[in-house]
């Protein structure tokens, strides 16, 4: 643990370049610790995002040695290769500066894919009873722990090839809502996700599921949407 880490960090916007820093290794050090060390001790102009530091908020994702990761939970010991780290901003989103990307487009896609809960009752109605063992509730459960980190979106090659593609995070969200019996927008949401830039664009290549830090399976959620879309199309409802 006495050796130093050789860290290359992306500086600038999309036309930037890598800059080298030497950071001392520490016990239980995370990649976020490394970035923070650089910003506090070596170069205060470095821009990056974080908030919770414990894997809850989803704001700290970066590309670490080529793979998208949540940096607050990525231990240096596990992800450094030959004592070095290469840190770049997330892929598939415009770089604002250094390690911070513009996630506006990412969140707009959530809206496009109908990622908004549409209530069917008001606070004056009795609380809806959703049996935890019902298949719909279990399907929703499997996808609901998303922290909006954008890692799956950055990992997906279809997003890279087709900027209009709604992407794994938005579609996973749509799938959880399609399985929410309290939601009143199933028909319109299905039309939104079955559109040209929706679930049918997915090639099931599984990068999203591979890198989701919460081990969600957007590939599986999208497969669920495809099934719904085909069923609706067969019934002439699309």
């Amino acid at each position, binding site marked *: 643990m006495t050796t130093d880490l050789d860290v*290359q960090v992306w500086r600038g916007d999309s036309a930037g370049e890598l800059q080298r820093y030497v950071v001392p290794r520490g016990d239980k050090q995370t990649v976020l610790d490394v970035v923070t060390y650089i910003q506090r001790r070596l170069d205060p102009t470095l821009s990056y995002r974080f908030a919770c530091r414990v894997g809850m908020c989803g704001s700290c994702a970066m590309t670490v040695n080529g*793979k998208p990761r949540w940096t607050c939970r990525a231990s240096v010991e596990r992800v450094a290769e030959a004592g070095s780290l290469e840190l770049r901003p997330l892929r598939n989103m415009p770089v604002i500066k250094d390690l911070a990307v513009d996630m506006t487009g990412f969140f707009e896609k959530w809206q496009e894919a109908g990622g908004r809960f549409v209530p069917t009752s008001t606070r004056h109605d009795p609380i809806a009873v959703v049996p935890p063992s019902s298949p719909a509730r279990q399907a929703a459960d499997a996808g609901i722990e998303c922290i909006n980190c954008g890692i799956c979106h950055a990992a997906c090659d279809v997003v890279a090839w087709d900027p209009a593609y709604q992407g794994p995070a938005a579609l996973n969200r749509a799938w959880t809502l399609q399985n929410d019996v309290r939601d009143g927008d199933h028909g319109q949401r299905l039309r939104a996700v079955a559109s040209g830039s929706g679930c049918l664009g997915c090639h099931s290549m599984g990068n999203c*599921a591979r890198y989701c830090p919460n081990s969600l*399976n957007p590939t599986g959620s999208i*497969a669920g949407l*495809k099934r719904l879309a085909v069923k609706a199309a067969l019934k002439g409802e699309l």
Partner: protein
Amino acid sequence: MTASALQRLAMRNHPAYWAFVVHRVSGVGLALFLPLHFLVLGLMLEPRAADAFFRWTEQPLVKLAETLLVVLLAVHLAGGLRLLALEFLPWSDRQKTWIAIAFGFALFSGLLFLLAAW
């Protein structure tokens, strides 16, 4: 290739991505072959040309290429069935099993053809 470009490629080094690549490459390969296939079908209208062609296909190298073609077909068929299973049967983390079954079936078909052809 620079180290970081390699690292970025490594992001895709997992079974589901390889399954996607193989499916795409076999699909494109088969699409390229299709016109040749029709050309040969057209030859059948001329018995003498067809005979000459069949003699040509007896060469080991052509046989090998044919085997490859059968493997491509089998790979693409199995990959397609895998996708249908993944996307139309309820999901239960059997993704890797399906990939393994698909590749197993494709290799088996290729070997079967080899045995039959030689």
